[in-house]
């Protein structure tokens, strides 16, 4: 299960937060844990360079993209490698929507479209689409080209 996708700005304020299968009372804990993890480790990290951690049986892969940091949390079949795949799809989609690694403002300007992309990529904790071109078309309700 892909337990969470979280996107925050450089100050640790949450921009997008999508949890799956995480009880409501644990969400705040996860949010602060991830933001703290980012604050401690993401300084000076290059765009899209992946960092990885595990907390008990849960894996966390996170990175920086422009002004925003992206965290994905998973367990069981969503181990560090599957999460790396998921975060790669997410960062590619964000870059496609924004045209470059976004500033916070650009990210918020494209907020609606980014939400649609995330909806195509992760559906209630399962990875659904991974191809960037296909995602680009799906958010506009266009069928995939290879079909």
């Amino acid at each position, binding site marked *: 299960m892909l337990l969470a996708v979280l996107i925050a700005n450089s100050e640790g304020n*949450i921009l997008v937060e999508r949890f799956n299968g995480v009880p409501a009372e644990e969400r705040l804990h996860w949010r602060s844990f991830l933001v703290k993890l980012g604050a401690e480790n993401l300084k000076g990290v290059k765009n899209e360079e992946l960092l990885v951690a595990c907390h008990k049986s849960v894996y966390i892969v996170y990175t920086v993209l422009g002004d925003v940091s992206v965290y994905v949390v998973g367990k069981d079949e969503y181990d560090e490698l599957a999460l790396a795949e998921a975060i790669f799809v997410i960062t590619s989609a964000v870059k496609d929507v924004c045209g470059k690694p976004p500033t916070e403002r650009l990210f918020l300007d494209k*907020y609606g479209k980014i939400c649609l992309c995330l909806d195509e990529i992760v559906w209630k904790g399962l990875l659904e689409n991974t191809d960037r071109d296909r995602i680009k078309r799906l958010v506009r309700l266009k069928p995939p080209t290879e079909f």
Partner: protein
Amino acid sequence: MAQLVKKDDDRDEEGVHYLVCYLIAKACWSYSTAEYSPFLGIEKGAVLQEARVFNDPQLDSRRCSQVITKLLYLLNQGETFTKIEATEVFFAVTKLFQSRDIGLRRMVYLMIKELSPSADEVIIVTSSLMKDMNSKTDMYRANAIRVLCRITDGTLLTQIERYLKQAIVDKNPVVASAALVSGIHLLQTNPEIVKRWSNEVQEAVQSRAALVQFHALALLHQIRQNDRLAVSKLVTSLTRGTVRSPLAQCLLIRYTSQVIRESGVNNQSGDRPFYDYLEGCLRHKAEMVIFEAARAITELSGVTSRELTPAITVLQLFLSSSKPVLRFAAVRTLNKVAMTHPMAVTNCNIDMESLISDQNRSIATLAITTLLKTGNESSVDRLMKQITNFMSDIADEFKIVVVEAIRSLCLKFPLKYRSLMNFLSNILREEGGFEYKKAIVDSIVILISDIPDAKESGLLHLCEFIEDCEFTYLSTQILHFLGIEGPKTSDPSKYIRYIYNRVILENATVRASAVSTLAKFGAMVDSLKPRIFILLRRCLFDSDDEVRDRATLYLSTLGGDGSVVETDKDVKEFLFGSLDVPLVNLETSLKNYVSVHAEIQEPSEEPFDINSVPKEVKSQPLAEKKAPGKKPTGLSAPPTGPTSTVDAYEKLLSNIPEFSSFGKLFKSSVPVELTEAETEYAVNAVKHIFDSHVVFQYNCTNTIPEILLENVSVVVDASEAADFSELASKPLRSLPYDSPGQTFVAFEKPEGVPAVGKFSNMLRFISKEVDPSTGEAEEDGVEDEYQLEDLEVVSADYVLKVGVSNFKNAWESMGPDCERVDEYGLGPRESLAEAVSAVINLLGLQPCEGTEAVPSNSRSHTCLLSGVFIGNVKVLVRLSFGIDGPKEVAMKLAVRSEDESVSDAIHEIVACG
């Protein structure tokens, strides 16, 4: 505007949105700079007002999209809508189905999913969604399926089932994936419906579209997961065919491992089924697949070195990958392998050492802890040097992992205690939180308990630590430990200064602890007694009641106030003996005592009598269940974990009159499960070994809330245990739901003889139904029986694992008087390591100096063991193994002990085993 004109065919709502927001913001916040947020000052009430545009007869698609974006932003920030608000927005959003704007429709699908309307509201959109589901536009179909499945219930699902089945085999991969992923979610809530789609899903597994295959495989496995044969068939057919997506390939590897696990170990030809497939995956082009296969191989049960080698080789390559995720995955897996096959990982040590400086601290910590497991005695010092530099820049949680690894290393190489203890004391002085400091203190305590040579230096390190310790809990625990160990050292007086400093400098809790510790020194060391009295008398003027009370009590007990003292034995029993009643019982009794007198509002005339506290342990603490595999936890579970469990058992047994005459308890085994997991009644047994008796303690748990068991006992058939004769049985009066209880059976056996045998067990009880509403049991019950697994008493039960810090010294000082040497042929074995571990398990002795680990490919090996045999006789064993071409293993067994009959008995165990 230029941006808008440019994107004519693919109108970018966000562009417009940005423009509109920009204009509004500019008007409102004319002073703000360009770095404003489009959601600046966003407020739920205002957005909900704005959502009224959804009801306009002339829909403005762009504006509607903007409002939905704002709603999404609010929801993604953790904002919640009340039931009324959500309903209003939901009804308004459903109006948007009238719009033909494609972009808006996509937003509407997302919005409905986010709002997750309640069952009675769903009806409003079902017809629109059903229409979309049958639309000619594929993308409408895919999205409508996803939305419908998110909001559907069982009844609606049966109506749309036909469409979903069609969708699973739809030519458009997006539609098929949407239906399959929906299936995975729906399987949780409506399994019986989804299971009917098996044929379609099976067809989708053969799809040419990679993701469809991935989703279909996941769903098919979930549908069939309880049918071993079907899973095995699925795996067999797919491992021969082509799997297009790496993600699906990873799933297949996981399912394959499951099949291997369930099909048992090697078949007749000696090959492991599917191993070739896993090994083939190591050459796949996707790293994800290679890693998954490598991990699956390392996790095979009873994996041999030959099977392990190719997996370790690819993991080693990943260690130097430029991708941090791969490095992490590899080092994490190798770390696990190091626990069971340390020698297999040693080849990777050089690569691993370079990871100590990895920027990603999770990787560095895993590398360090792996190295600590695989390192040999000669590399310890070098490793410690590297770790010292590393410790300063990692977080506490990582430091704790390192400290625990160092503790195990020190127990493995006791001769290296000096450098490891120094390391621990150095990090103890540095900054750190409570958990970290506790881990270090626990480690030092365990080392002191296990390595006698380390005691004095360890105690001094702890003393220095409490001089400047900010944690009351740790200070009091250390003072308690100091009181027990300090008086037994060569120069107890040197600790007094540290202890008395606490009385002067610390808070009341620590001061009270320090007073108790001083008293213990006074009781144990006569030469210090007069000086301790002086210090205790000073404590009589303390500002805190508890400290003064303790000082007065101890002065009177020890005779410091000039009174007639109790006998030395009584004093020591009072100071060092533990409370012989369970704390929970004491607490309940005290509460009752206080509440009774509070009710009648009169002070009690009779003092509280501790003898009135029941001694029976109500339910076995959970800790016991977890005992196997649990590391000793240091101070919190005094000096050594296992001893404290034995203490608890000893106390429990001595309180049962039938067993009180059996003498001192020699050994208690770890609990042996006699039932499978998740059965109605869970029973495990602990074997308690006495000199001429054996007691089986059956820990029983009733897992059915509607049943109460009474008069529970275990009927033991000892026909396959000739040396044992049943002496007594102690049934359990009642066993309510989820409240564990114990029943016992005792046997007599020849004194001091390590008699062995097999016992079959039958749980017998009266079962009564419980009314769930009142919780009361019916009066009449039914007699019933429940067959349990057999229990065996083996030779290893008569041996205590007790390590020695320096085997060579111990061996030489024992002398050759009672030495017995013989040679044995062990026949063909899987490997040398397997033979070594089999003999260690058979003897039940403690491996010393890390000699239980056998280097891979070695042809000979020496293993050193030590322990105590029943009758309290020390035993040392030197095992020399050799293996030849056809894997025939020969062993030379040399035993030294304080009693030649014990040396013979050890040979007997091997000869019979």
